């Protein structure tokens, strides 16, 4: 068993290296208690729905979410008819038709969320040269994940701290690398009116949209963890049986 312990210890040390790779880039994040963290954590669907509202009414003016089909929202509790109605609210380019022309049609749940700009250059031209990143995977594409998104959205300071020389059109943010970001402080108190009556503080909006973006980056998060619990329970029982049989077998050796 000692050898086994050594093996486990070496594996643990080796894995520590991966953490080290990320620690080198850490900034101080305002860490939140997410209902979806931990082994049994699941996405807070009500929060994710509110977060979708924030995305739709605020973020989507500049940010695309090009990898996410509208039907994905079934995972946070949207019903079929709600999805159809929601999708129909978007205009999607289709075609070519019999005359060889592209045309616009109402969206379907199978369509992906339409992007606000036709291409990156158009996005830059409209945003003072800055490219608003696609949000499909943003919760997995930043060190700190949803904590980073929350800290970023609540981390604007206006006016910028003394001694910071902001470039024209830039805004000061505590956690953004370099602290100068093209995006303005967009979340405002009561910037959205939540259908469920939740008070829309900046912190609430940031938390909701971070939950939503975690969901769209990892739509199978709940399913994955639930399967994981079953798999590990199964393996623990199997390991117990294997160990008992091994002990019994080897005890016959003398």
């Amino acid at each position, binding site marked *: 068993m000692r050898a086994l312990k050594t093996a486990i210890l070496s594996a643990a040390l080796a894995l520590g290296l991966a953490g080290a790779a990320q620690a080198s880039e850490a900034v101080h994040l305002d860490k939140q208690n997410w209902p979806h963290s931990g082994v049994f954590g699941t996405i807070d669907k009500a929060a994710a729905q509110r977060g979708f509202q924030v995305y739709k009414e605020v973020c989507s003016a500049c940010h695309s979410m090009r990898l996410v089909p509208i039907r994905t929202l079934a995972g946070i509790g949207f019903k079929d008819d709600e999805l159809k109605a929601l999708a129909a609210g978007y205009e999607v380019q289709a075609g070519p038709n019999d005359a060889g022309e592209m045309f616009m049609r109402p969206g379907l749940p199978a369509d992906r969320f339409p992007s606000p700009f036709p291409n990156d250059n158009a996005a830059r031209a409209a945003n003072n040269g800055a490219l608003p990143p696609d949000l499909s995977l943003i919760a997995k594409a930043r060190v700190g994940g949803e904590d980073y998104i929350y800290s970023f959205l609540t981390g604007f300071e206006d006016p910028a701290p003394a001694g910071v020389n902001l470039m024209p059109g830039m805004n000061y943010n505590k956690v953004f690398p370099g602290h100068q970001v093209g995006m303005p402080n967009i979340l405002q108190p009561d910037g959205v009116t939540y259908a469920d009556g939740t008070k829309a503080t900046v912190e609430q909006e940031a938390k909701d949209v971070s939950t939503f973006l975690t969901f769209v980056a990892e739509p199978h998060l709940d399913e994955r963890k639930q399967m994981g619990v079953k798999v*590990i329970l199964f393996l623990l029982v199997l390991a117990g049986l294997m160990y008992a049989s091994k002990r019994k077998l080897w005890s016959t050796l003398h």
Partner: protein
Amino acid sequence: MAQAQASKFKNPLVNWIDSRLPIFTMLDHEYNHYPMPRNVNYLWAFGAIAGIMLVVMIATGLFLAMQYSSHTSLAFDSVERIMRDVNYGWLLRYVHANGASMFFIAVYIHMFRGLYYGSYKAPREILWILGVIIFLVMMGTAFMGYVLPWGQMSFWGATVITNLFSAFPIVGDPIVTLLWGGFSVDNPTLNRFFALHFLLPFVLLGLVILHTAALHVCGSNNPLGIEPKGPQDTVPFNPYVTLKDGFAVVVFFIVFAAFVFFMPNYMGHPDNYIPANPLVTPAHIVPEWYFLPFYAILRAIPDKLGGVIAMFGSIALLLVLPWLDTSKVRSCKFRPIYRQFFWILAIDGLVLGYAGAMPAEGSWLLIARIGTFYYFFHFLVLLPVLGKLERPLPLPNSISEAVLKGGAHAKPMEKA
């Protein structure tokens, strides 16, 4: 003249086949009756674990390849399609991505076990050399696999690593052009990396078969490092070792599952969820964790060609390890001085790995240089010299004597 071989199997079909192609006799001989030293500990399970990980990787990789597109404009999105829309695609991909790390963990433990117990010494030199070649091919396969999702780290990792070859005079640039299939990392690079990433695991499978064949010629080493003297020193592989290895595999899978289901992106880099962009360089380009010690060696040398030679040399010298170690005693249990240097080497590997993840400047660069120096010093100076100077402890007469009587010399290795 052409007479079917006699076969001992009762099942007529098995008997018919075996007398024409004695594959069942071979399997029976190699996996039922194969004598394993009875004192092997759980570190000996990591060979079997590594073999199973190779099978897991080939199986998941096959189904991922059915859904993946190896074109720069489609690769990133096709991986996301696997994650979102393919049935259990997220599971396949997370098992494959974390499986690579788990495969390396198993192989690193397997290698350090070989180093500690002197498993590379005569008559197991070819067995060890095949293992080093497997390690090299694994590294190439893993590197090319990491390029396939075509994220930022894929692209920039590929750029940095392929550019290493340009350090060689005269042949360097043509090699890089050949690797790229052009004059920059682009679509032809991705295409050939995908083709090679699909091919190399089967090369690995062949090498693993050779590795196992070489193992079964001289038999497994054991913690005492002395050869079994007869049946009292061994147990038949099946059921004794199959059950013991089976238990170890299940425990290993628990750790594996914990990563796959609860922290699937822990061992990856967030930048790889950003599509590759040749115009934007990430702040820190870091390879996957299993390459970090070698990356630290590469960056520790101030000269590019020197760094590349040191990095490849650090692996190449493992090929001649059986001749660098001059001690006749295999197991560190009986080498009181070398045992301590073994642990320094293990720590050195971890320190180099940590330094490889840090920016190559200031004290981390110094630490990486000290670590690099020790690595080469250990293999090129300590091993040859210690074998001559060190006075090993007396070896037990036989495995069964040491195991059954708890012989005074069979101290647990943690006493070091």
